[in-house]
């Protein structure tokens, strides 16, 4: 009954290489890997010039770990990488396990910071033990959700509110529906069926998207949230990358995804009608307009489900990081605050580059001020 790939069965493969490379035989027999070929250089020997930057903990490497939302993961990873180049002693690792799991790990205190696409609810806040102080929630960057589509010969699709609401709730079934054709004069729309692609996994992107639908679509009945009951018989795909792949594969497909993913996969994106009635192409600049002129509450729980600005792109949200007011490890918390100050200032260029919305200056200043309230003095 043995189902193992045993050495005897693989025997016919081994002799040819075994004589020259004893290491391979050891691997094939399932022994431990051979000793490393090249000895690692002693730390500090390769870059003496950069080690001048002062770090908390007296030069020792500081590993900070976090977990949470998947949507901002590309920009977070880029930031941690760039920041590590500036400060080689600070290593930040991040598990993109989803906002829900991120909040849970933050409240269980198994991470140094959490990240979420949905703001903390009051009952979640109250779950944090008192000796950690209150939860500090700061925005890191803005996200916006686009309609990506796959339709030959149509490069600049315009969707009115009526049109995209109809696609999402399944009442518009073909591409040449008059509600779509009305705003796309001069474009030949095929009579193909529309395949609506949505997320199958619970997701902050779905949350942002459906929050907008609730405001924008009078006939939308499924409510909003990370998982909703889709009225249209569409295809569910896992993750932003799954949605992007499904759209690429299917002629006549349209779905919602984070702008950064549509940008990466070079999918065509639709121009949407906003609250003021204007048609706005999805660009980081237009999306940033949605965040302008809004009053920001003290906990930064700014929601713009349906921005009023004339030039604002309609489906926009912030994403947040969660920190402890009274952290367990003051040195780590201090570095993390340093990092966040850097990310909303010098880190902005990377956000723009990847297709995220950098925080407006006014908001960035407020974030820095809030970071000062973290108690980082050693006891």
């Amino acid at each position, binding site marked *: 009954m*043995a189902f193992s790939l045993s050495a005897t069965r*693989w025997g*016919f493969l081994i002799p040819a290489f075994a004589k020259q490379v004893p290491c391979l035989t050891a691997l094939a027999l399932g022994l431990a890997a051979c000793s490393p070929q090249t000895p690692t250089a002693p730390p500090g020997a390769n870059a003496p010039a950069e080690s001048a930057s002062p770090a908390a903990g007296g030069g020792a490497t500081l590993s900070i770990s976090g977990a949470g939302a998947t949507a901002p993961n590309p920009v977070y990873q880029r930031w941690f990488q760039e920041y590590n180049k500036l400060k080689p002693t600070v290593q930040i690792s991040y598990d993109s396990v*989803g906002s829900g799991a991120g909040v849970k790990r933050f409240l269980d205190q198994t991470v140094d910071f959490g990240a979420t696409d949905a703001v903390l609810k009051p009952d979640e806040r109250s779950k944090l033990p008192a000796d950690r102080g209150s939860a500090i929630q700061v925005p890191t960057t803005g996200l916006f959700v686009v309609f990506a589509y796959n339709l030959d010969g149509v490069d600049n699709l315009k969707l009115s509110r009526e049109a995209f609401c109809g696609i999402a709730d399944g009442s518009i079934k073909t591409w040449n529906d008059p509600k779509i054709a009305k705003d796309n004069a001069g474009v030949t729309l095929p009579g193909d069926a529309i395949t609506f692609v949505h997320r199958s*996994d619970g997701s902050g992107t779905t949350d942002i998207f459906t929050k907008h639908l609730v405001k924008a679509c009078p006939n939308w009945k*499924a409510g909003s949230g990370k*998982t909703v*009951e889709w009225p249209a018989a569409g295809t569910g795909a896992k993750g932003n990358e799954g949605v992007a792949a499904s759209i690429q*594969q299917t002629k006549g497909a349209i779905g919602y995804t984070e702008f950064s993913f549509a940008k990466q996969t070079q999918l065509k994106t639709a121009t949407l009608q906003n609250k003021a009635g204007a048609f706005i192409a999805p660009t980081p600049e237009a999306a940033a307009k949605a965040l302008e002129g809004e009053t920001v509450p003290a906990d930064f729980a700014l929601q713009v489900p349906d921005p009023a600005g004339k030039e604002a792109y309609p489906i926009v949200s912030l994403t947040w990081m969660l920190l402890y007011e009274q952290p367990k490890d003051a040195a780590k918390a201090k570095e993390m605050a340093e990092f966040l100050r850097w990310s909303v200032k010098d880190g902005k260029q990377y956000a723009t580059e990847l297709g995220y919305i950098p925080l407006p200056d006014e908001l960035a200043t407020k974030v820095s001020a809030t970071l000062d309230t973290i108690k980082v003095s050693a006891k």
Partner: protein
Amino acid sequence: MATSPSQTAMPTERSQSSRVLDKAFVWLTGAFAIGVGFVLLAIAFRVGTDALPAIQKFGLSFLTTSRWSVNDEVFGALTQIYGTLVTSFIALLIAVPIGIGVALFLSEDYLPPRIKQPVVFLIELLAAIPSVVYGLWGIFVLIPLLKPFGIWLNTNFGWIPLFSTAPSGPGIYVAGIILSIMILPIIAAISRDSLVAVPAEIRQAAYGLGATRWETIFQVILPAAFSGIVGGIMLALGRAMGETMAVTMVIGNSNSISPSILSQGSTVSSLLANQFAEAGGLQVSSLMYAALILFGLTLVVNVLAEIIVRRFSLKL
């Protein structure tokens, strides 16, 4: 050159330390065996307690309703149970005949060993491919390949409920086919091992009685290896029902039941993979309930396999 007295005494009398070592080894292996059983029970217990709120709220209606609404906190897993059973059934339908055929071909001496060994190796290598790779292959290769076939089935045989919906790419049949490829090496490898393990005397006795090669294979060798083959099939079925990543990527994840295998659906494992990360409250508990059902399904399958083996295997 005199032999030492201890050497001659060896067969009858063993040293104290050797006997202690023997005992210790038996205890150690025993502890491992019990440990594995304990882990299983611990998992079942934890899943059970976590599922309790959903069991209390929905009871057996969880098994018979298909609404899954996070906003209204109403959950039912009928779609997923149906999807799990149908995809696994399609997978077995394809993989069992092919797998046993492959095993027969490779256990008889049709091929010289120099060619046979690499073929065996290649089939077993199928089992080593990560399931996410199968899923990606499914999205980018299998779905475009199968779509014309699905459309052909629908246009020509659409009057059969099985093919009554127009395929939109992903679907239950794609998931079933991917699963059949994934479980094929398990069935082939285990069946081959049990066929090879049939004592040579039995084969010679059959030939001696005047049986042809085919009669020997179908009336002697296969029945003799039956319990091993069923064991392999059950292991494969377990993998098919529990497979998560590849299925999630090709099944379409739609919460609807349709008699058509060309339509989209979802399975218990794909539901768990999709929703667990962002779930909270009663939703988590309902997901645990669904996991418990998958647990139960696997248990039923194994019990059935045991009964089949006991009833039909050739007594040697």
